[in-house]
């Protein structure tokens, strides 16, 4: 899922300074699961902003609505009525949601209520870690299902660096060494011979580095 974290109350307050009718939009998918931008979190943020604005003697008319997914126009259309009535919109979705809503309502200011972090997994209650960089050319099969492109700080493709301890990364001593994990995993599934293959330099042309990418699937086009 996409993992995001909330902006501070002060940041939220500053974002909407000057706007009198504001719509807070939650997203019912990734950011609900990561406890950042779902219906409850939007409700709590609304309380905080209402209090802050009342203290500043700047009345605000604040409405809240949470839709299933902010990254799909199909769901965004449910916002049309509430958006028409608002001076500005604060999206509590990921950066994708913010931009999709902004495209859908070109005459409204749309602000981001969250800081989008990464694609990751829930390790334990309220702890998430990054697992995928979205490089566009998945190499997981070669590495026993553990991605050195994302999880090795140096993105090494042919074994660990000299700085790692037996189990942990030298860049962050709390982070497991991806190459130690890869070795253990390949050993467990009896595929250690994969490490004999030299992995050539990665082709980054499929990644973000030449700008925003686009996927077209002809078989599903209508």
């Amino acid at each position: 899922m996409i993992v995001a974290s909330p902006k501070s109350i002060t940041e939220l307050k500053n974002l909407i300074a000057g706007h009198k009718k504001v719509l807070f939009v939650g997203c019912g998918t990734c950011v609900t699961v990561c406890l950042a931008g779902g219906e409850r979190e939007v409700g709590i943020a609304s309380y905080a902003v209402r209090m802050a604005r009342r203290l500043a003697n700047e009345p605000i008319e604040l409405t809240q609505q949470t839709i299933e997914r902010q990254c799909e126009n199909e769901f965004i259309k449910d916002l049309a009525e509430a958006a028409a009535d608002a001076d500005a919109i604060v999206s509590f979705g990921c950066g994708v949601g913010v931009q999709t809503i902004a495209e859908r309502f070109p005459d409204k200011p749309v602000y981001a209520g969250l800081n989008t972090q990464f694609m990751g997994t829930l390790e334990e209650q309220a702890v998430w870690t990054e697992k995928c960089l979205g490089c566009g050319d998945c190499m997981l099969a070669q590495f026993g299902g553990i991605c050195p492109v994302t999880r090795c700080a140096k993105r090494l493709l042919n074994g660990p660096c000299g700085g790692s301890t037996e189990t942990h990364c030298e860049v962050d001593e709390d982070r497991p060494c991806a190459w130690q994990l890869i070795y253990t995993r390949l050993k467990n599934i009896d595929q250690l011979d994969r490490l004999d293959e030299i992995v050539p330099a990665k082709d980054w042309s499929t990644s973000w580095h030449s700008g925003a990418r686009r996927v077209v699937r002809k078989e599903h086009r209508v």
Partner: protein
Amino acid sequence: MTPEMTPSATTTMMTGSAAADPAWEPEIIAFCCNYCAYAAADLAGSKRMQYPTNVRIIHTPCTGKIEMEHILDAFLKGIDGILVAGCLEGGCHFLEGNLRARKRTDRIREMLAEIGVGQERLRMVNLSAAEAPTFVRSVHEMVNTVRALGPSPLKDTQHLESEG
């Protein structure tokens, strides 16, 4: 901390216009867990122990059942202070409801400080059902704290926004 949320500005807001009203009395909500604080309050009554009438008790099944929205809504509506009273740590009937309540109250205290309402207006205490004197003392302390702070800065302001 932004300029409008400096301690001096916060203090000014917390001792706003209503502070000058000599008839003002703090309005305080005490969320009391069924298994400890509510029983302790009941015991205090049975023992004829006196405590201020500023407190309105809300009977809850466990402090873990108190959502952040309940507390924030009360502050938005102008309550002067909130006391959350739960079981001793390790003594929760539902194992860890009071520990969760502690994390939530700590988070709301941070929010109240950032907003400028003042974190002292929210307090959590832990006690057992037998501790009527502790309950009475906690109420006295809360009332005294809030009385010193003055009325909530969210009280007596124009309520122009929607309930949304």
